[in-house]
């Protein structure tokens, strides 16, 4: 006779976590349903909200947080999280290239695939990415991770987002000078235009493979976890999260546009500040770029707004079901770091036309040189921030 425990069906989460998680999911679905009723754009808004829910749940369950996984590696040589990001990039690269072939059969004609996040490459992008990395280290995570942490009940994350909105305003104030001096003439490099689709996919997968081998070699296995956890409370492995993030990115590009989490925040900041005497009346050339396009708001719901609302609700539901919902008041130092870090991230995301999701993930998946440049300088900024915090004991 077999052991009783082996025969037992897998346990279900207790009602006290299951019921509120289901309620969060229902709220998300109700939001999507309501958005679907908006004339004209309803279908896209509803789909944005649904993709946001999926994205938020995956980020939360797999702890897909750019700063956390970098810190794991720097502190303990635990490379699993960073390998998860590489898994997302590899999945997304293959999926995007598959779609490019359908969207734009000939990549050499001088056109760019519609809406893809392919930005100008210049020192401004490098400076923005470095600032973003520094701010991410100070505030404890990037903008997408702060959004999913709101779902986990983090009370420092709203402060970081508030700081980021302020950073956006600083970005708008510096924009016209940067655009006229540098960005207007900066090259916009899309790898398939010169390498073809096969060449660009091969080059990217090759680079990702090299990074994977290097990280895997440096990896030190962490000590085993304290005890077995129930399946619903267990974190998903980072590479599973990465592959799912890659899939969501490709599906989003197929139906709506590349993933991004800062456009709505930027739009809110721009709408709030526009009209003030010190705010530039015109942001030269900004609305012509794909990526973190931050139009002044004219309607209540934008695609990005629906996506972000879905993200927070999805993360909230996932956190509730996994027992990760733990509201906690930040200390004064943490609150200050969140605000300051947010400010640096906001400025960086504005001048780099996006953040870790919009420029790094969606950009590299789209085979944009700007995505790779962002990744390199983001790593530099993050390392500096990590070092600063370590030295100062923050």
């Amino acid at each position: 006779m077999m052991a009783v425990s082996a025969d037992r069906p897998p346990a279900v989460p207790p009602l006290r976590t299951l019921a509120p998680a289901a309620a969060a999911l229902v709220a998300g679905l109700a939001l999507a349903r309501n958005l679907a009723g908006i004339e004209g754009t309803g279908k896209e808004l509803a789909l944005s909200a649904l993709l946001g829910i999926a994205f938020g749940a995956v980020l939360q369950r797999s702890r897909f947080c750019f700063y956390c996984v970098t810190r794991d590696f720097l502190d303990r040589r635990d490379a699993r999280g960073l390998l998860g990001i590489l898994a997302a990039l590899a999945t997304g690269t293959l999926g995007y290239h598959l779609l490019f072939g359908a969207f734009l059969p000939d990549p050499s004609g001088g056109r760019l695939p519609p809406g893809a996040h392919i930005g100008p490459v210049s020192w401004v992008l490098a400076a923005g990415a470095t600032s973003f990395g520094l701010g991410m280290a100070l505030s404890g995570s990037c903008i997408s991770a702060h959004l999913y942490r709101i779902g986990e009940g983090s009370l420092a994350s709203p402060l970081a987002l508030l700081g980021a909105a302020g950073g956006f305003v600083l970005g708008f104030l510096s924009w016209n000078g940067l655009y006229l001096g540098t960005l207007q003439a900066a090259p916009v490099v899309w790898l398939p235009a010169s390498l073809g689709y096969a060449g660009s996919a091969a080059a990217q997968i090759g680079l990702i493979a090299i990074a994977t081998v290097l990280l895997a070699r440096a990896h030190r296995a962490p000590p085993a976890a304290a005890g077995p956890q129930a399946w619903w409370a267990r974190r998903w492995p980072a590479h599973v999260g990465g592959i799912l993030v890659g899939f969501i990115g490709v599906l989003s590009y197929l139906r709506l546009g590349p993933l991004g989490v800062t456009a709505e925040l930027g739009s809110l900041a721009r709408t709030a500040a526009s009209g003030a005497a010190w705010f530039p009346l015109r942001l030269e050339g900004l609305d012509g770029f794909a990526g973190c396009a931050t139009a002044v708001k004219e309607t209540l719901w934008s695609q990005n707004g629906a996506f972000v609302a879905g993200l927070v609700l999805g993360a909230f539901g996932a956190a509730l079901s996994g027992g990760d919902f733990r509201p906690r008041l930040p200390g004064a130092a943490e609150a200050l770091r969140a605000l300051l870090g947010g400010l640096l991230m906001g400025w960086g995301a504005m001048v780099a036309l996006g953040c870790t999701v919009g420029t790094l993930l969606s950009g590299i998946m789209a085979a944009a040189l700007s995505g790779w440049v962002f990744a390199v300088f983001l790593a530099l900024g993050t390392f500096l921030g990590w070092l600063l915090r370590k030295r100062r004991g923050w």
Partner: protein
Amino acid sequence: MKRIRTLLASATLLLAAHGAFAAASDVLVTTEWLEKNLNDPKVRVIEVSVNPGQFERGHIPGAVNFAWHTDLVDPVRRDIVGRENFEKLLRSAGVSQDSTVVLYGDTNNWFAAWGAWVFDIYGIKNVKLLDGGRKKWEAESRPLAAVSKQPPAGNVRVAGADARLRARLPDVIAAAEKKGDVALVDIRSADEYQGKVFAPAGIQELSIRAGHIPGAVNVPWGEAVAADGTFKPVEELRKVYAAKSIDGSKPIITYCRIGERSSHTWFALSKLLGYEVRNYDGSWTEYGNAVGVPITNLAGTVWGGK
């Protein structure tokens, strides 16, 4: 012999008259018709949409995409595409001498109608609009494809541009100064027409002055469109314009802000009602900035500032 000649002449006249007062089916196709004829190799479907990514994410199966701001304009001059480039474009889209071209697009066929105007300027025959455009096709849940295919090259020959379909600044000034008997139709919103605003919400101001060309009547383009995005029936259209004294008794010039939406009204007036119409593609961005031309400004705004 003489009799036969007379007969032939009357038949030609009849045909010409029929051409001038073309029935809707001659210049428009319905969504049903297009779906049934999609596999006809002589039917070439071309999308001209305003929003990038529309075509790529789903288009009428077999359609080819024209980007209005690169394919249908001259890259250097502010002008429509040149003859050679247009011929190249059409051939690579698989258009041949015997093709029937069906144009369609988003936002109620604004730019598809502009495409039809460009096709007409270059004398391409058998060009029709899909009545209702993308809006109706999607509302009826007809199939869309995400994969675009390169059709075999066509052999169409493009003639020189026909200047008679285009109004230029001097033509419009002459009309404004009542030097010719021409009717002007401003298809912009009432607020733009009256001079309350310089451009629609969300669009950069591109003119120094607000208002309209003296003598122009205001018939916003939307008045030609039914709820489902199709053109209103011909008799109804006739009434809409007749109410503003546009009845085809004299030549007409249509204009808007940059000359594209007005093609929609150009199409209704010339192709559906058979009136003599020119589109002024310089439109308000040219006229509102031109030096030494009269402007009617009902709202009293002269400069942008107060």
